[in-house]
């Protein structure tokens, strides 16, 4: 089954990217991504620029509302995602637990919606 692993990071995690902790921060992710790649389970995935760079758009009636910042204002923000192909949810959770942000923010694991059956 395919699962999307959504990596939620704290503001402090995001801050790590730009301060003196950056080498350790990236080393942690590189090790994790390397392990995912070597296991041959990656379908696709990306890291995202910090949440401060986000812009959110809503259309209400004929009005477009453009908002500076991410969709929801929560303590943890989406930092990146991978779609992986593994046997079951247990295996997906194992991989989620290894992510650097699992011990600071969290990882949301969701099955990918299968394509609709052909009529």
């Amino acid at each position, binding site marked *: 089954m395919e699962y999307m692993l959504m990596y939620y990071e704290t503001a402090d995690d995001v801050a790590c990217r730009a301060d003196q902790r950056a080498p350790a921060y990236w080393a942690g992710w590189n*090790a994790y991504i390397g392990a995912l790649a070597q296991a041959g389970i990656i379908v696709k995935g990306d890291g995202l620029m910090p949440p401060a760079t986000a812009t959110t758009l809503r259309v209400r009636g004929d009005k477009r509302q453009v908002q500076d910042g991410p969709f929801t204002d929560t303590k943890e923000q989406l930092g990146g995602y991978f779609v992986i192909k593994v046997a079951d949810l*247990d295996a997906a*959770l194992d991989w989620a637990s290894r992510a*650097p942000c699992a011990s600071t923010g969290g990882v949301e694991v969701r099955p990918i919606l299968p394509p609709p059956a052909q009529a």
Partner: protein
Amino acid sequence: MSSSHAAIQAERAARESYGRLVAYLSARSHDIAAAEDALADAFATALEKWPESGVPDNPEAWLLTVARRRMLDEWRHQSVAAAAGEELLLLTDELIEQAEASAVPDERLNLLFICAHPAIDAAVRTPLMLQTVLGLDVARMANAFLVAPATLSQRLVRAKTRIRDAGVGFHAPRADDLPERLQDVMDAIYAAYGTGWDDVEGADEGRKGLTREAIDLGRTLVALLPNEAEPKGLLALMLFCEARTDARRDATGRYIAFEDQDPARWSLDMLAEAESHLLQAARLAAMGPYQLEAALQSAHTQQRCGAPVRPAHILALYDGLVHLRPRVGALVSRACAVAALHGPEQGLAALAELKADDAARLESYQPYWAAAAHLEAKAGNIAAARNAYQRAIGLCSVPAIKDYLTARMLALPQ
């Protein structure tokens, strides 16, 4: 009496007799879920009544009587089939006698065997045991086993339905089945403990949330089967690992590998208890894998305390272990023992052999990469060591061990 006192009494009764009562009730009805529901009601009633009426002389019998009444009500409500009704009448009489007499007979052993029955999915055996015998709640177990609570609940419900509907026998296995069935019970208990392979330097400790409960189950099994050697081996193994819990972390929470631990911080009581179980097991003269694992723990421990344990003897124990049970954790540890005796190149060769056999599994097995990194570094293959540390870090889910492995990697010569 204060309500908090009654609550403490009820809790104590719960811990001490929960498994006994579930075992006893479900042995007659073959319906674990119904037994648990009835008992939950009985405990709730106790919390309500005891603060006013006082704790009864025999709380277990009291709980049993109330639970039995609940089960009867429920059955009447569902108007179950005649055969079950007869069983029920039998149950009623027997239980009334029991309530008047003293202790409820201990049928937890049967319950353990049922939970680890081959007809039950192996992944659910351990949680089923913890829930029925010790009364652990799903949320706590879900964290320890890294599954979603809703998923675990569903699996437990399915397993209990299967036990009821498939007619899994509520009796001890036949003598010729016993060794295999007992192995399943012990494996399920050890799975609750998590793995204890900290003889592989920097290996992931795995899921350590339920160690005390696992040891409780181990003690129960030893008490229920006093003439079997392997349960004693299993209990000894868990106690050896548990004795080192405090020494595995420094004051700031950093991970300390086995070879750097301060033996003064090991629990002497637990080590002594472990040695004594291992000795009693040896007297029964029935060697098995859990005893070998415990013997290895004993050897490692004594070696660290300065006793002259020869690397060749340690390797011989591993050879025996992997001969009986060629599990990947033991095979990786054996490679480290080969290195201790014949040098890191030989250890790496042993690891390479494993990889040739089961590459897919080892790709994502953290202790393999932690061991490989350690041995490559010892052999002077710095680039290979760095690569292996990277893999181990990427596969590790325990932050303290990630930090430890990262520090080891950064300490490699440039």
